[in-house]
């Protein structure tokens, strides 16, 4: 009975050429809208790239010219010399990579303990982790800043590295949820074989965590690399600056030389853009998975 209805319904849909034509029209319309928005999304980046190769006069011309003539290659060496971009790259990489690696290890360890081990106070402590997820960072940043000041860590990259390396409630939560969903048979076999908990974690569990680890890793790396507020308050000297902070300084110092500032912006974003283009599937999966957080 149901099957018959289904067939009838399917047939009535399929035999309507008018609707199919309207479907094609709709598809074209949708693409037009999507392309218009694509232009809106890409044009600012394109203009950044184009004007970074233009002379000041050309970049300010009315109407704007989209093809640099002559191509001002020298904008790039000039920007690179103006401020220590190589140091900023090193600083940003150091911060982002250290934090990411630490989070991957500490969060998966804690996530495993909360998911599988039994110890007194486990559920209360896990609940505390969940509760801290709701605290906006502006609330805790003043005492953290003052702590760093007491520890003499201001203007030191450790002030950026330490807090997120040791604490990510979101990472712990993500790992715990994922490990809870894993079957227990593998571990049980290892326990019978007399393996220690550390061996079980490292040899059995950790290799199974590729999906949540890549999601957490990408999220941690991007948020550390792009962070602006914490470097802004913690760092003072430009040799310690991260890339966003240096770009901000560049903009301040060369406020009128926009072509140089744009070359600096290109230098600042090209590495992340390349990583993104190469790993976009993982980036987007990671963000969709971590969207819970933001």
């Amino acid at each position: 009975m149901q099957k018959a209805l289904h067939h009838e319904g399917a047939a009535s849909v399929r035999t309507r050429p008018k609707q199919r034509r309207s479907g094609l029209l709709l598809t074209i319309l949708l693409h037009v809208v999507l392309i218009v928005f694509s232009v809106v999304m890409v044009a600012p980046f394109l203009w950044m790239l184009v004007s970074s190769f233009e002379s000041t006069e050309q970049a300010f011309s009315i109407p704007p010219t989209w093809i640099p003539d002559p191509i001002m290659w020298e904008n790039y060496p000039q920007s690179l010399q103006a401020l220590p971009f190589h140091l900023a790259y090193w600083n940003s990489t150091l911060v982002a990579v250290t934090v990411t690696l630490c989070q991957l290890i500490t969060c998966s360890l804690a996530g495993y303990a909360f998911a599988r081990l039994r110890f007194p106070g486990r559920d209360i402590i896990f609940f505390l982790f969940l509760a801290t997820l709701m605290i906006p960072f502006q609330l805790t940043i003043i005492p953290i800043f003052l702590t760093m000041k007491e520890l003499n860590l201001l203007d030191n990259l450790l002030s950026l590295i330490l807090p997120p390396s040791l604490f990510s409630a979101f990472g712990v939560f993500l790992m715990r949820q994922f490990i809870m969903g894993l079957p227990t048979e593998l571990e049980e076999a290892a326990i019978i074989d007399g393996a220690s908990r550390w061996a079980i974690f490292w040899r059995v569990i950790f290799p199974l965590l590729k999906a949540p680890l890549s999601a957490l890793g990408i999220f941690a790396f991007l948020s550390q690399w792009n962070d602006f507020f914490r470097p802004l308050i913690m760092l003072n000297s430009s040799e310690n600056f991260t890339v966003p902070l240096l770009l901000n300084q560049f903009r301040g110092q060369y406020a009128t030389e926009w072509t140089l500032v744009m070359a600096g912006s290109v230098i600042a974003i090209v590495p992340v853009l390349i990583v993104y283009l190469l790993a976009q599937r993982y980036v987007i999966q990671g963000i969709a998975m971590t969207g819970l957080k933001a």
Partner: protein
Amino acid sequence: MDVQLHGKAVAEKQRRGWSQKEKKEVFWGYTFILPQLIGMLVFSIFPLISVFVLSLTQWDGLGDIHFVGFQNFIDQFTGDDLRIALARTVYYTVLTVPIGLFIALMLSLALNNVRGKSFYRLLYFMPYVTGSVAVGVIWSWLLNSDLGLINNLLKGWFHIDGIGWLTDSRYVIPSLAMVGIWQGLGFNIVLFLAGLQGIPQTYFEAARIDGANRFQTFWRVTLPLLTPTIFFTTVISVINSFQVFDLTFILTDGGPGKDSYTMVYHIYNLGFKSSQYGSASAVAVILFLILMVLTLIQFRLQRRWVHYEM
């Protein structure tokens, strides 16, 4: 249930003592959580308690700490700056959240129905990846009133005199909202697409069998089943918009005058520019309470419009 069972098992063990194997498990449990536990205590619980204590004091970070009761809060509520910051922030949020979510929802629906979804998504997501400083620097030139691309285009193509996007007090918050929407679009689209993919195909089949047209299917099936995602993105967007800082700092520095002076900018200004840690903490506490109330209200209201499956 799981938690209760666990609790009972622990109580049971405490009565009859721990076996060697269980002791080991307890040891490893604490060892594994130790780094994160220390991190939480030092970088979340301790600062959380401190900020509430600090908000009741006056301290410049050097001299003595003076306990002043609720004086900081009274000062904030009677002074101008908090009122200004709150008004600017609310204005920004009211523009950014509905418009941003509406555009993202429409584009996600379009993307869900065409080929080449991942290509478009790649482009829409770029500003999220490049970070807010680069976005701010690029847009500060695009929106520059004398030399910026947008005003130059308006003049060159349409012979219209441009406006002071970032320098005119009437336009500064809408301009910031525009950049904020532009930057957040990809993120919202990714969440909406995940939500759309989460709708079981059987619902669409059922609608087709019932002879529903596209419009009916959207209105009666897609939209109701997407309400949990819409709710979730709304909560996140409100929180994010309320915390806007990077864009205002880069694009306008809170100006012109105090026309884009937002809440987090106020905290930054008090705490990190003028070392008034007590007042800054008080504003941080106020911001936290506002966000909490807003989120609670949204959770209350969701019963009226969010449909959870089953």
